[in-house]
């Protein structure tokens, strides 16, 4: 334990899927904030770089009982098994081009270090990591809008959502300037959060009970009784994480009142969901 870890933050997010309208503001705000490139054909979603991707889910029923929900998916900033910081991607990178910041809980990606082996992409079940198959090119003059806060990437490296780390840095700079030891909740908000016109995204410190994200998620600091790999399970019965059972321990939570949506967040054997749904999110409550 070092000094920095004692007051460690654990930045996380909760997305209200009932409020999400699938409008795409978060995606574009992210692209614009983080100098994400674009190319002529982006309709192959498997080679289209969108740090924030909005998935469309349906309940699989036929007309007119069909339902749709949109699910925005940034990098989940996994804490890894037992929340020890060994995220699926971090532990596999051969060149330490991605690491887990124990002071923030944010998984980094360093473009100048990455040499493009793509092992991290294979390891990530959320497809949150994107490869620069092409050298990014902006139409003549358009590179003038690039932000100096995020380095533009080169061909052949992996990139992904950083929870707008540069905004955290800017907030800290301001705090240093003001002689404050820490930043306020509203000083560090990701670009997707601030852009969301529906206010569906709430971002903050999961370690800070005063933060809204903590109020909604109510993360359980103890490992789940039925799966010691899972830590930080929500005690809110409407809150779930994607593929929680794998033990990746994402810091992105989702909120929905609709049961089928919550069920879609993970994989269940036949009949399994019905057994656990009522305890879902609250199984370690007592």
């Amino acid at each position, binding site marked *: 334990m070092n000094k920095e870890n004692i007051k460690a933050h654990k930045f996380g997010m909760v997305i209200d899927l009932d409020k999400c309208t699938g409008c795409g503001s978060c995606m574009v705000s992210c692209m614009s904030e983080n100098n994400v490139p674009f190319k002529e054909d982006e309709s*192959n979603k*498997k*080679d289209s770089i969108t740090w924030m991707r909005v*998935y469309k*889910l349906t309940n699989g029923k036929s007309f007119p009982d069909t339902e749709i929900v949109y*699910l925005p998916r940034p990098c989940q900033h996994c804490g890894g*098994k037992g929340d020890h910081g*060994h995220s*699926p991607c971090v*532990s*596999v*990178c*051969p*060149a*330490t*081009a991605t690491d887990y910041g124990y002071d923030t809980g944010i998984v980094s990606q360093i473009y100048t*270090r*990455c*040499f*493009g*082996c*793509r*092992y991290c*992409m*294979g*390891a*990530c*079940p*959320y*497809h949150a*990591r*994107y*490869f*620069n*198959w*092409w*050298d990014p090119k902006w139409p003549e003059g358009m590179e003038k809008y690039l932000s100096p806060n995020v380095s533009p990437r*080169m*061909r*052949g*490296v*992996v990139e992904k959502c950083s929870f707008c780390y540069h905004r955290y840095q800017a907030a800290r700079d301001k705090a240093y300037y003001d002689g404050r030891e820490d930043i306020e909740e509203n000083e560090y908000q990701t670009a997707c959060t601030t852009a969301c016109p529906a206010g569906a995204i709430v971002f903050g410190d999961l370690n800070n009970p005063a933060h809204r994200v903590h109020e909604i998620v109510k993360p359980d600091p103890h490992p789940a009784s039925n799966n010691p790999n899972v830590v930080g399970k929500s005690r809110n019965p409407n809150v779930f994480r*994607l*593929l929680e*059972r*794998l*033990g*990746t321990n994402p810091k992105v939570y989702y909120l929905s009142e609709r049961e089928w949506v919550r*069920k*879609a*967040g*993970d*994989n*269940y*054997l*036949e009949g*399994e969901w019905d057994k656990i749904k009522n305890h879902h999110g609250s199984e370690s409550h007592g």
Partner: protein
Amino acid sequence: MDSALIPEGANRCSFPKFAVGIAIVGAVVLWGVYAMGLIWWKGLNQTNMNDYYGFALWIWADLAVIAVGGGAFFTGLLKYIFKVDELKNIINFAVIIGFICYSSALLILAIDIGQPLRGWFIFWHANVHSMLTEVAFCLSCYFAVLTIEFIPNILENRQANKVPFFHHLAHNMHGVMAVFAATGAFLSFFHQGSLGGVAGVMYGRPFAVREGLLIWPWTFFLFTWSAAAFGPCFTLLVTRITEAVTGKKLVKDNVVHLLSKISGWMIITYIIAKIIDTIYWATVTVPGLGFNISHFYSNNGFYGYWILVTEILVCGVIPGLILIMKSTRENPTLRLIAIVLGVIGVCLNRWVMVLQIMAIPVLSFDTWALYVPSWQEVATTVLPVAYGIILIAVTYRYLPVFPQEKELNRTKPVTE
């Protein structure tokens, strides 16, 4: 024309004939090199890989050549450490095949990465927790070992051997080869294993993930074991092909039988372990993560249970059984079937552990992702094969690869 270079007492085809053969295969090499150039110059967009298929045909080829190249370390281990002396008659060839496989693997890795000029960062900025780091280190070291093992054979060339220094060097290197063989076996154990580990540690991918011993998932041991088991099959297969092409018997049957037998028992033990692993994974590991194993073999146009059955039964159990039973093992046709099935089996295993992993959706709302390689990928994957053929042709022509060749072909000097 080049008769001065040809080993004494060996019969080789005429140089023009040889040259034509090399030129034909060389054209394939050029095609591959052209594709490689395209990929280096224009980038990986020349492939059909995508963000779902970060690992694709090349990584499979990489794992497959390393697996079948496992014959080198295992034969070396048997010959030098366990002193199975008969194997000296095939060890040179095993080493050459290993050399080809490993140099190909390194070449493929150099094409596969997005920033090839930064490839050495894997050493310079190594993350010791990554299985890939382990792979890179052991792979490179073992390639060096293979090179050292290969050198004495090169120095035995008729002209090279005339130089006293080379002659003695070759002699002395043979003397210390046990040390290298041991090192090689050790290194191989780790990189074959860590290649298995590459898949096994991906706990975000239920199809790949395995529990294990300490930091090593079971796939680590299975990969090592399977390389040792099937590597010799490949050595035997290539020997058989070389014999067919040259029209000569190059290795005595007792050597072949011995290696087949060892391989057979290795395969059988491996496949038992693999079956246990599969059953445990299918009944304990993945259900715990919410998956029924049918999830991995249905709802798509390619991957079905057939691949599991083919890998384990058809290309695992069957060749194993053929090779452990004396009667079937010593039947040349059955033996050939067994070693071909074995090689297919291990390649299929590597395919499954690379490509099928990538194809399977993990998020409940995602779909299967199938992929067809681009011609550039195919060309660069064929490149090592063509290069291997050329290297075998050249070494066979100019080096005394098979110690028993002269003895076996003494009576009737035949040109092919």
